[in-house]
């Protein structure tokens, strides 16, 4: 990797100050994407702003019908948190399915969401759960947050602080992993919150997206059969040496069916 300056602020305000002052500085949370990129010299930040010492970014709390997860909360903590397990079981299971124990004990939910890798898990949950992304400056609805491949609504210097999730009635998640990387090749997260059904697809396209036809069908009939015959168009989906766009489109239906079954 190239040389960089290293900062370890202890407050959100200090972190934002450093990031705002230097457009080439990058925040680093669990480092599960950024560190490999640095090692491959694919990234040359002037400075890394390590967020791990900022206590207010960590932790999970339930407040009535809302669960708030700090951006620096590790996957392992999401997976094992009793509130998450009780209220959003599919999110806990999703966190448990990411990478391996080393990854789950380093990687953070906020890091993954901010990075918006099309093959990451969390964006599907955040979108399907209609979460609100809380930054140091504002609140952003999930529908507005994920804007494209590795692109979000976050502005330079803006820091994701927490993810607020309204407690759903039902959640389910199913994914087909890329055989080599074990990232998501195609995954579907289904959630029913306050009677509204949202279906989010990750892995298949350049960015997580909602499958509205399936949402309608599931609103009318919450069962795997309701989505079993809904075909996803392959247009605009990803194709690579592991699977064509047609294959991914097919998997959207299969994973949607399984996600609903998972939700029960």
């Amino acid at each position: 990797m190239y040389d960089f300056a290293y900062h370890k602020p202890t407050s959100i305000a200090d972190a934002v100050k450093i990031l705002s002052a230097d457009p080439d500085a990058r925040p680093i949370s669990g480092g599960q994407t950024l560190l490999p990129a640095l090692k491959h010299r694919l990234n040359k930040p002037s400075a890394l702003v390590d967020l791990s010492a900022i206590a207010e970014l960590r932790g999970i709390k339930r407040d009535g019908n809302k669960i708030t997860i700090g951006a620096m909360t590790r996957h392992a903590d999401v997976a094992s948190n009793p509130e998450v397990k009780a209220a959003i079981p599919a999110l806990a299971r999703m966190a448990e399915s990411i990478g391996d124990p080393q990854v789950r004990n380093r990687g953070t939910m906020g890091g993954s969401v901010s990075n918006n890798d099309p093959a990451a898990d969390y964006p599907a949950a955040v979108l399907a759960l209609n979460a609100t992304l809380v930054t140091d400056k504002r609140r952003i609805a999930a529908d507005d947050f994920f804007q494209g491949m590795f692109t979000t609504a976050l502005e330079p210097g803006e820091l994701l602080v927490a993810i607020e999730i309204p407690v759903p009635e039902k959640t389910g998640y199913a994914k087909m992993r890329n055989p080599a990387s074990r990232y998501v090749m195609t995954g579907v997260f289904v959630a029913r919150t306050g009677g509204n059904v949202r279906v989010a697809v990750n892995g298949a396209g350049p960015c997580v997206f909602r499958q509205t036809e399936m949402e309608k069908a599931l609103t009318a009939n919450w069962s795997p059969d309701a989505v079993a015959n809904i075909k996803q168009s392959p247009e605009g989906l990803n194709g690579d040496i592991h699977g064509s766009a047609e294959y991914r489109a097919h998997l959207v239906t299969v994973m949607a069916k399984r996600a609903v079954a998972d939700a029960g």
Partner: protein
Amino acid sequence: MNVVTPFEGIGASVKRKEDLRFLSGRGQYTDDIARPGQAYAYILRSPHAHARIRGIDAAAAKAMPGVVAIFTGADMTGVGSLPCGWQIHNKDGSPMAEPPHPVIAVDKVRHVGDPVAVVVAESKAQAKDAAEAINVDYEVLPAVATMEAALAPGAPQIHEGAPGNLCYDWHIGDKAVNDAAFANAYKVVKFETTNNRLVPNAMEPRAAIGDFDPATGEYTLYTTSQNPHVIRLLMGAFVLQIPEAKLRVVAPDVGGGFGSKIFHYAEEAIVTWAAGKLHRPVKWTAERTESFMSDAHGRDHVTTAELALDKDGKFLGLRVHTLANMGAYLSTFAPSVPTYLYATLLAGVYTTPTIYAEVKAVFTNTVPVDAYRGAGRPEATYLLERLVDVAAAEMGMDRVEIRRRNFIPADAFPYQTPVALQYDSGNYHATLDQALEVADWKGFEARRAEARARGKLRGIGISTYLEACGIAPSAVVGSLGARAGLYEVGTIRVHPTGSVTVLTGAHSHGQGHETTFAQLVADRLGVPVAQVDVVHGDTAKVPFGMGTYGSRSLAVGGSAMFKAMDKIIAKGKKIAAHLMEASVEDIEFDRGNFRVAGTDRSKSLAEIALAAYVPHNYPIEELEPGLEETAFYDPKNFTYPGGCHIAEVEIDPETGKVEMVNFTAVDDVGRVINPMIVEGQVHGGIAQGIGQALLEQAVYDENGQLLSASMMDYTMPRADDLPSVGVATHATLCTHNPLGVKGCGEVGAIGSPPAVINAVVDALRDYGVRHIEMPATPAKIWSIINAGRPKMAAE
């Protein structure tokens, strides 16, 4: 007196002596070695598959912090081409095209990863920084990434000395006899297949340290090698012109090789040469992506085969046309792999009376291809065992029955095949029967029905395979083009108090030699395993040996030790006869004791050793002091392990994902020294075989860019991809080596891929699938399922 417990000799699952240091982090691998004052090399590699180098400007890079030196191909005057160790001749008798392989590219680069310059700096990071500042002016040329493209008329030419990108056009077998057999056939079954290209991916990346002592003029190369003497010979004699006495090659602990660490690589010569120039040790360690782009790849055949059968399903003849990818340059043993390690295996376990095979080896703008676990034999086995299944289907015959009908019978050994090899022993009916029993072949249809009720497609597949290993009789391989002998050396050094050091030319890089070889000594000389040390991997310590590959270490290296022990025992008898005032003919030796026959008078090996090293009472006129013997053993034949592998799979028809639910291997590896180690070797081989069948593939795009250049895109088998493997052995002894051993390192990788694909095809039988190419990925299987409607038989 030394007492060997029965738990330490031949047949005992002695725990591996070497594991204590490996598991406790005390192994000493090449990258763990730090020589005083060592500098670090980083190799700048070509990003293009094919390009002319118009110029290299390293002036700015040379001025960067920490840079010691930068060398390009033009700086390495007097350095020879990397040599090829095997020469194949064309059909017309002319030698193969053997274009030069510069250590660092000169004028042209021929694959992504081809070395262009080396930066030596005080740190690796500084070397990398400087490498980025080197400006290489490339004129990008059109590339040929596939054999089809390379052979096309008007294709870009990779080497001046290889017109049409053809390395050789070779054949074996009597074509006229073969044609006649096909003319009389009841049926001819034709089959085309590609044997997928693999990246070896040893856990330890390659590394090398060159060291030079200006006081003595001695060079030392520490390297991740399976055969340090071979590297010393090739690099010393052909590349750097350093006499053996001034060049020491050390291959310390090595973390896996699978063939990829047999070959003499450019980096070894670069660091050794640079150390001599700079009078400083120079270390290079590959990063994983570098391994993908510079370790020799494996397999990569495209084949058309035809099998002629009579009406009863007896094989009348086999005809094979294969294109074999050599990559951009000839790696050390590359030409031998698709010829004498492949086509000679096409008889398999069958009595096919005539075989004709034609192999064209082709240069492409890809990483060189060479031996990888099994080397040629997996390609032959896969072709044959898939072809037999296809033939059974087209003849309407049972897959097991067609095999039985064509097996070489157990009483037909020694058996001469039509493709040069003479098998010494085997019992294919026995291994088949045992495997069918263990795998509960008969109960399969019930399991298939049960799986179908769960929505899964279950299939079972069989492979009855044979391989030739224990390489090799030197005169035989010499007549076939090998430029080296393939004997092995062993020294047994009995110390004055009776402990033993074994020196072997074989090299352990995961195989457990330190234990298996100690067991040979324990069994024969009665010395406890704990008192037997095995030394290997250092040309300064061990006599000239040939190393480890081709499942040869025990069959050839172990036999050398056995012969050396013969000499120890013979000498010991003379000493014992003198000490006990008996005649030599009356001395009997059994596991550590020299006894006067028919008496209770005996001397232990330790007593004999002490007498030999403290020769106060000793037949000094007739016998030299000391108790150390060396033997060089040249095998009389290859060894022929064989057996039966049965794979059982379940396919999720919605995703196309294959789950390996069961795997049975019954292997005849000859006499087993350590069953636990054999089982581990078979497990590892099967893991790689399943990897080839279901997961692994090196993919190049049409411009010669390696798309699967990291673990993110190259699917290595993981624990959850693998089933619990049932391993059993059924031994027929090798008849021509003193241990009766055959070799077990490669059987898993050779026997398993066709068993897996046969099972996958069986699972998809209702979809009218005739064949599916490796790797059978979920996407590939889904596209078959998606395209074909299930044809439910008898509905």
